[in-house]
Each structure stands twice: as C-alpha cells, then as structure tokens.
C-alpha cells in the first residue's frame, strides 16, 4: 500500500521495536506524538486532539506487537476507527416536521457557503419529493438576495424576499406563512454570514429561531477552517442549539480536521458535505472517508464509488484483468482515459488518491479534451505491435509516429511517459485496493478483501 506521511512516520517509530513483545507506554507515547502532529497538521483543534490522544493511548498501550508484524498499521487502525466513531452518528437526513412546512435554517460565518448550500439542499430535497421554498434573510451582504434569486432560478424553485429593509425574523415569519398557504412543504432560510462574537447579529438569529421554530438549524462550516472552528461552533451551538452541520468546499485538498473539532464541541451530526460550486455537489457525509482524509490517506472510497457510478462494468472487468497481468496497453489507455473523463475533473479524482495528493506529480497526468484528440491520433499512427509493446517504441519509431499523427516527437514522448505513469498508478491502486473496504467490489479489483490496514 501507499503510505501516507503518518504511516511512514509511525513505521519509523516502530522500526526499533522489532522483536519486542508488547507496546510499552513509552513506545505508545512516541507514536502518539506523530499522531498528534498529523491531527494538528490536519487542523483538528489542539484541545480536541488532547482529548483524543488520551483515548487512543488507553487502547494502544499493551498492544501485542508480536501478534501483528506491523504495529504502525495497528496504531493507525485504532486512530482511524476512533476518528470515524467520533465523527459518526446519525444518518444524513433532514428531520421533517410532523405538520408541514418543515423549516430549515442555515447559519454560519461569512463566505462559508450558506447561500450555495441552501440551493443545493433544496435541489437534494426536491429529488425526494419535497416542494421547497428559499427565503432571503440575508439583508446585509451586497447582492445576497439577488444571489439566492439566481440560484433559485437555476433550480426553478421559488425564492421569497422582502427586500433589505425588513427585519429577518419578520421575513422568516411571513415566508413560513406563505409556504403554508401555497403548499411548499419545506422552507429553507438563508441567513447572513456573521461572526460568532457579533452580539447584535447573534441575537438576530435567536429571534429568527424563536419566531419560526425551525426543525433544523444547520451550521455551515468551511472545511478549510483552522483552530478557530471550535470557538465558532461552540458559540453558534450555545445560542441556537444546532441540529446539524454541513461541511463545505471538501472538493479541494484540505485535510478537513475542522470536521472533528466541530463534531466534538457541538455533538451534532455532520449531515452533508459540499463538493463543488454546482448545485448538485452535495453529498452524504461518510465518517470513514473523513477519517482517511484527516489522516492523509486519501479518499479511496469516494474514488471507487465515483468510478463505479461512471464506468462500464464489463469494460472494467476486462481492464481489471489486463492491469493485473500487466497487459495494460496503449489501446486500453485510450479507452481508460475516455472512461476516466466521465468521472469528472481528472485532477480532482487523482487528488483523492493517497500519495498523489501533492500536485507536483499530477502535472504530467493532466489530460484535457484537446489532449485526448492528440492521444488518439498518436496511438492510431502506431502499428498494432507497437500498441502492444510500448516499451519497444524506440527513437525512429517515435519519429515515424509523430509524423504520421501530425504531432511532434515531444508529444509522442509525453504520451508514452503518461502511459507509463498511468500504468504505475494503476498498479499502486491495485495494491492499495487489496486493502480497501470490505464489501465493495469491482473497479480494478478494489476492495477484494481484508481490513483497511
């Protein structure tokens, strides 16, 4: 498997333990230092980390080293499982009111993604048969109402507003009454971003809450948030009794330790995650994957699921076998590129693979539509023998291929290099897949058997 930074460091730490029986307290403390470093590096709040480490310590001391050849992986497993447990809990679901309309209120800091998430949630709930209405309670940010109107328009969902001169609690009340009259069974309130220390504006939220008694009050948190996440979450929770959390902007490369911080201080379930700016980019929260991510192990399962949703199963089987036997050829490569393209932006997908998260390596793998045309042209200028034996394509063959495809030798070189790297990556994926989650099957032989470690 590909080791994340933490796994490597733990391995270092435990190297000297070969032949030892049980992990002593000192051994464990040594290892936990690395765990602490990893968690804080992932932006988990340091006080939360302190608590967490104390729990882990109990479980790790006395671990049988001889039993397993890799105590490092055992420790990671404990850390991972504990993280997943802590972040787990209730399902990603919106509590519906016994008597409609259900009222959902979105709250959070400035720029966290409330307005976008309001629209995403409406989109999500409508697919489940709800008839949402969006309410513009942000009367402060320039063009906030317009922003919500535009998003509502894109979804063809009604947006209620009373301009920016009416107090937000009054807007909320009027909206709920209107929704009841017009048969909208879900009302989502978009509120203005505010600092958790802003007395006036926090009181305003309380007033909205008391006026319309929302069924859900969701804190929208930017997943790139650092140590301050605990202060923010705590303050919002104290004033409003939150019912859930939505983490946004997880489509980037943040490790997202704020997830653990927020969960710890509020006790609220993380209900959804935002995975992009588009209105269908709202996904269920998976504590397991989040644990992987915080530990820097990549989001293998998301990758696998994405792949499964988009790949043609039969072709996958064939590819599978070829890769396993290292018969993966340039022809397969073309096919695979077009398959991968269906999965979404390639960089995003590759970013989910452990060890490939660092952008540098990805540069050579970037593929876009134009590239694909080149790739196809180049490969079709090869002889069948060459396609089967890419390693044998020497200088004079490269020149001929370049000429035949109207490209340059550099481009042919680049393609062959990309191909080699892809082949390597595929191998890595396969090796890693052997250790992936139980029950998941198929793509490239991912998830055949065994535990994550």
């Amino acid at each position, binding site marked *: 498997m590909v080791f994340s930074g933490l796994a490597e460091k733990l391995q270092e730490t435990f190297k000297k333990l070969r032949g030892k029986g049980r992990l002593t307290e000192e051994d464990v403390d040594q290892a936990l230092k690395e765990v602490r470093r990893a968690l804080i590096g992932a932006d988990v709040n340091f006080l939360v980390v302190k608590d967490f480490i104390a729990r882990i310590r109990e479980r790790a001391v006395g671990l049988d080293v001889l039993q397993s050849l890799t105590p490092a992986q055992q420790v990671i497993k404990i850390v991972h499982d504990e993280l997943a447990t802590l972040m787990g809990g209730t399902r990603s679901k919106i509590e519906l009111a016994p008597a409609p309309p259900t009222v959902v209120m979105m709250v959070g800091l400035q720029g966290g993604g409330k307005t976008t998430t309001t629209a995403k949630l409406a989109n999500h709930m409508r697919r489940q048969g709800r008839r949402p209405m969006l309410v513009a309670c942000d009367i402060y940010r320039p063009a906030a109402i317009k922003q919500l109107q535009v998003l509502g328009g894109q979804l063809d969902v009604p947006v209620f507003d009373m301009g920016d001169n009416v107090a937000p609690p009054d807007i909320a009340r009027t909206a709920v009454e209107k929704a009841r009259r017009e048969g909208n069974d879900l009302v989502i309130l978009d509120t203005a971003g505010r600092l958790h220390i802003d007395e006036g504006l926090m009181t305003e939220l309380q007033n909205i809450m008391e006026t319309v008694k929302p069924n859900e009050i969701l804190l929208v948190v930017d997943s790139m948030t650092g140590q301050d996440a605990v202060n923010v979450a705590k303050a919002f929770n104290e004033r409003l009794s939150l019912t859930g959390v939505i983490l946004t902007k997880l489509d980037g490369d*943040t490790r997202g330790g704020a997830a653990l911080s927020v969960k710890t201080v509020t006790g609220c379930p993380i209900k959804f995650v935002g995975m992009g700016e588009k209105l269908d980019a709202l996904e269920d929260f998976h504590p397991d994957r989040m644990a992987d991510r915080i530990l820097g192990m990549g989001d293998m399962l998301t990758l696998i699921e994405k792949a499964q949703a988009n790949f043609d199963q039969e072709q996958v089987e064939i590819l599978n076998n070829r890769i396993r036997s290292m018969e993966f050829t340039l022809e397969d490569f073309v096919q695979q590129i077009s398959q991968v393209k269906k999965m979404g932006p390639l960089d995003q997908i590759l970013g989910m693979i452990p060890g490939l998260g660092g952008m540098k390596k990805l540069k050579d793998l970037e593929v876009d539509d134009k590239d694909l045309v080149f790739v196809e042209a180049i490969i079709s200028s090869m002889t069948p023998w060459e396609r089967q034996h890419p390693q044998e394509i020497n200088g004079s063959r490269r020149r001929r291929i370049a000429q035949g495809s109207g490209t340059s030798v550099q481009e042919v070189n680049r393609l062959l290099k990309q191909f080699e790297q892809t082949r390597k990556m595929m191998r890595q994926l396969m090796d890693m897949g052997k250790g992936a989650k139980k029950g998941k099957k198929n793509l490239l032989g991912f998830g055949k058997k065994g535990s994550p470690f």
Partner: protein
Amino acid sequence: MGFFGKLKESLSKTRKNFIEKIDSIVTGRKVIDEDLYEELEEALIQADVGIDAALELVENLRVEVKKRRLSNPEELYAVLKDLIQDILGEETATLNRASAQPAVIMVVGVNGVGKTTTIGKLAHYYKENGNSVLLSAADTFRAAAIDQLEIWGNRVGAAVIKHSEGSDPAAVAFDSLHAARARKIDVLIVDTAGRLHTKSNLMEELKKVHRVLGREMPDAPHEVLLVLDATTGQNAISQARLFKEAVGVTGLVLTKLDGTAKGGVIIAIKQGLDIPIKMIGVGEGIDDLRPFDAREFVDALFARDKKTEEQVG
C-alpha cells in the same frame, strides 16, 4: 514609497477588537519553565501557526534563552515576538505602483475569502486619496457576483466594467484595461471568481486573465493580491503555493481578523514562499482595511480574549 502610510494614519482611529484584546500570555509569570514553553507552543498552534512552525519557533526560543541566559518570562516573550517578526519582516509592505497609467491590481483567492469586499475597501481608499478607480467584474461565474461588485462600485463612486454572467473573464479584463486607458484611470482593480487552487481548469482560466493583462500592458498586473481568510487553517499554505505558481502572487491580504481567528498560518507562508503580507481586513465596512503591521499582528497572536480562553468540552 509609503503608499499606505496615510491609510494607516486614517485607520488607527478605528480601533477594532483586533487590537483591543491584547494581553500577553506571560502576564503574572515568575519563571521560565516547561509549562511556559508548552503554553507558548499551544498558543502558537491555536493561532494556526501550524505544528511544524510552532515547534521550530519554540526550539529556536530555547536556544536563544540559553544563549542569552534569560530568566525573566517577559524577556523570553520579547524574544519570541522578535523571532516571529523577523520572519514577517519589520517594515510595512507597500503596494506596487506602476509608473504608467493605470496601475493594475488583480485580486485572487479561493471561494468566499473576501475578495470582492476587499476590492470595495481598496477602491474606497484610492478614491479618498484622489485617485480615479475602475473596477473589472471578471467574476463571471458566481451568482450575482457582478451585482455585488456594482453595489460596491456605487458605494465608492467607481465605474464597473462588466459583461454578462458566464462570459469569458479574460475578455472582461481585456475590455477593462482598454476602458481604463481610454478614461485615463489611475487604478484598475480586477475581481476574479473564487476558485479552489487544486482545480487546474479554473487555474488555467485565471492564468489567462493574467496573461491577457500582461499582453495589453507590459508589467501588468502590477500587483496580484491573494486574499486569505484568517479563519483558514493549514490549507492556506497550499493555496498560497498554487496561486503563486499560477499567477505570481505579489502580496497577501488577510481578511476577517475582526473575528477570533488569528491567521497565524501566514507565518509559514511568509517563511516558505516569501510573499509579503500587505493588508488586513477587519470588518465588512468600507473603512475596514488596514496596512499589515507585523508588530501589531504578533501582539494579537498571543492576545487572549475570553472567547478563546474557554476550554473545549
């Protein structure tokens, strides 16, 4: 030239809690002991300085304390502040100014950090100082982003060059630069859509805006400001690295320092990438922009306000 000296003067009156909550960690301490080191380390971590940078700073601090045979916590504290200030640079960074008209400023960053608001404040500052300003609505992606910039334009009395939503941002930048020249504008500020630094297609789009400006006017953009949200943790390092790689960031703006987040991650960024921090945002109002002052920033880093003092349950 002290482009921001005046701003500093005018803003020192608007005292935000950013500066008011100062009270050092060592207050009341008698001796330098392990506890103190540990607390300082934690204060640094809590301020988002990052664990590696925090450990390194505390390590260097130990060395200094030994070398100088310090015994007074106040002295130790002063040394630590100096260490950080050395990294951040003593001097207040100034904005680059073009010799030619217009000075072109391009503002970039991830989603929701405060780019457009910063542009509004910056435009206001230039206007106040007698410069003519033109705004370029090159965020053509986010819903109502153009309207948002226009509202700011109205507030400060600056015209906005815009196309329709969804159009090519580079084309907007192109037109804006030509308009700025035709109107003999002093400062052109280009708003761009928030984008995650890991999305190569969006970063390519940004590079194109940058390229077009440079092609139309040598040396433009004269300033590429990367806006970072002080609430952001270690991911800001990745943001800074990739935005710098893409469009050669010339300065940082750290926003939302009116909250309880300290923005300590900029220390690692300054150390690793050497991008000067030029301004800070301390609120949503038109006047809530200030020049970055390393001393003040470091003081605030160790400031303890009630909110952050409380323990996590």
